């Protein structure tokens, strides 16, 4: 016992020392404002903070670095000798879907790695933690991967932008359209955590607003593998539509088990949030006919396809909307630096606000000044019954115009 106690004591001592050392590091350094004009530290540093190893790895993860590098290459090719930013560096970190890790990594990026901007940050809790850091450090932050409307609502701030989508957009696109087209009675199953609860609220509100009814909203534990009984329960009362608000592995479990239930073919399945990587992993036939809102699709038109081909050359996989959005955000940031002649965050915010953009990701895009939501056209997609080629999984049924998808600016946002 003696030796064990000694080990335990020394382990505690090591842990304590390590945490002291860490907090000392956290306190060191501080935001270095760029001199009026010119670049801080003579270079532009883009921080990519996302899930590099967990459930969101495939839909964004390491391949977003490739997308950002494409933006840097395009920027350099476009401006060559005239480029304001000649030295551009990407730093990456894995937040492991934990808000506390995202918080400390963001701090490290801004302070010690001299990041001028942080991109991506899927997972709503992590996304909100980084928004607070951006506000405190007065550095730019463009969120892409997270869905929470709080980023452009109660937690909005001058330095935070939300580029690709949010839960309200998904609800307007999917619930709004399906209800208008006759799917009036819904039952919703949602995972019982912040994202799922948020989605359930947004979807229920949108169904009701369009003259439909939600019979039951059923919370399922998160994560969960056995949905058979949830599906039976969701089928009670003979709804026309069952909405699944699950993501990742839960979504795949739900859809597999829905397909094996007697409801398949009788009830329409609507999915709250889906990425092309989900369809790829489950197989297109399993999702066939499912409707969902997509922020961008690689095979939508020639421009998207051309960009996707470049991406595929480097990664051997087709891009998700998050990859394209990371490219678009990085490109527009660099354009703003070029225009301003500096990477000073306040100056760049001025250049970005109100800017109207049409690029490979944003169609009829506008960086809304009031709440920093980047509004753009989104798409109601239906999964094909079979794939003509690998990754060609979606039929775009309808383009939802930016104004309809994003509605009015969020009144909860005060730019505090």
């Amino acid at each position, binding site marked *: 016992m003696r030796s064990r106690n000694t080990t335990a004591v020394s382990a505690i001592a090591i842990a304590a020392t390590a945490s002291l050392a860490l907090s000392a590091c956290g306190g060191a350094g501080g935001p270095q404002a760029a001199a009026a004009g010119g670049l801080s530290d003579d270079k532009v540093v883009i921080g990519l903070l996302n899930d590099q190893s967990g459930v969101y790895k495939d839909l964004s993860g390491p391949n977003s670095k490739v997308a950002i590098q494409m933006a840097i290459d395009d920027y350099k090719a476009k401006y060559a000798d005239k480029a304001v930013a000649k030295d551009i560096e990407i730093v990456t970190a894995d937040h492991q879907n934990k808000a506390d890790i995202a918080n400390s990594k963001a701090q490290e990026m801004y302070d010690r790695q001299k990041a001028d901007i942080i991109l991506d940050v899927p997972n709503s809790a992590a996304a909100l933690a980084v928004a607070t850091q951006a506000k405190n450090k007065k550095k730019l932050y463009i969120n892409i991967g997270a869905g929470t409307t709080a980023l452009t609502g109660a937690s909005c701030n001058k330095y935070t932008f939300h580029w690709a989508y949010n839960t309200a957009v998904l609800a307007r696109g999917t619930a709004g359209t399906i209800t208008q087209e006759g799917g009036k009675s819904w039952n919703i199953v949602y995972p019982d955590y912040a994202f799922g609860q948020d989605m359930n609220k947004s979807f229920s509100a949108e169904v009701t607003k369009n003259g439909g009814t939600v019979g039951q909203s059923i919370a399922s534990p998160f994560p969960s593998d056995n949905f058979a*009984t949830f599906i039976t329960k969701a089928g009670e009362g003979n709804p026309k539509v069952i909405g699944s608000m699950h993501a990742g592995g839960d979504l795949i479990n739900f859809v597999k088990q829905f397909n094996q239930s007697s409801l398949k073919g009788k009830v329409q399945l609507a999915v709250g949030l889906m990425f092309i990587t989900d369809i790829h992993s489950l197989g297109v036939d399993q999702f066939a006919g499912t409707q969902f809102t997509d922020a961008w699709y690689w095979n939508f038109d020639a421009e998207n396809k051309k960009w996707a081909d470049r991406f595929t050359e480097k990664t051997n996989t087709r891009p998700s909307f998050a990859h394209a959005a990371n490219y678009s955000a990085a490109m527009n940031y660099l354009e703003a630096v070029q225009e301003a002649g500096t990477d000073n965050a306040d100056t760049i915010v001025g250049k970005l606000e109100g800017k109207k953009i049409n690029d490979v990701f944003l169609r009829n895009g506008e960086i809304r000044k009031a709440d920093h939501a980047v509004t753009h056209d989104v798409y109601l997609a239906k999964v094909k019954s079979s794939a003509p080629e690998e990754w060609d999984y979606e039929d775009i049924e309808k383009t939802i115009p930016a104004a309809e998808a994003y509605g009015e600016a969020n009144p909860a946002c005060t730019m505090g």
Partner: protein
Amino acid sequence: MSEFIQYTLQGLAAGGFYALSALGLAVIFGVLGVVNFSHGACYMLGAVIAAVLLAELSLGFWVALVVVPVIMFGFGVLMERLLVQWLLALDPLYNFLLTFGLTLILVEAVKLRYGVSGLPYEIPAGLGGQVTVGSVNLSVYAIFACVFSVVLCLAVGLLMTRTRIGMIVRAATEDPGRTRALGINVGRWVTPVFGFGIALAGLAGVLAAPTRAITAEMGSNFIIILFAVVVIGGLGSILGAVVAGFLVGLVEAYGVAYAPAYAQIVIFVLMAAVILVRPSGLFGREEVA
């Protein structure tokens, strides 16, 4: 009433699957006294290997049902020979930590090779569709999985209680010293039994492949439920694992039907209640606790 029957049937179907999945955990603990935390990871490996066999070699479900347990048996033997055996003499906590570490390595390795969004797998031909009686229905595959599991659990039960091998293995666990004195090489049986337990985990993985998401993390949550099953049934008891498997399946189904948000908590409330009344589980031996 038909709804009640519907939920009961779904609970039983899930229960059969839980029983088979927990069986390997019970066998390994019963014979070696090892709490194998990597059981969930081995279950995951079983499903992943089945998916890879299908994708790379076009070997379907029925082949996987035979091939995967064989591969996993080999994996279990290696695991026991290379790692587990060296810690058997020490506090059980050491092997618990070893298998926990192994779980992390296996999960990350699969993530590195196959990504995180999962692999596709389909219901085998002939097992699709539903059986409907009145307003009650159940998918053919769920019925198959349940019957298959129960038959296998019974076979393992008979193997352990009615055959010479089973007798030796049980004697070796009850009293290794005296069994050795009777001229039986106890050590010889430890490795195959461990491999057998791992093979059962792999088999459960194959059975799960058509109905569940095949991802590196698929075992991480599942192992928690399996531990609840073996604790309720009594650590190391095969009959206990089977009975508790069905009990947990039913409790979960009724939970979903009547209090959906608490469906999983109910399982652990049941576990806590069983431990309070019978610390060694429903069918556990007192000395185990």
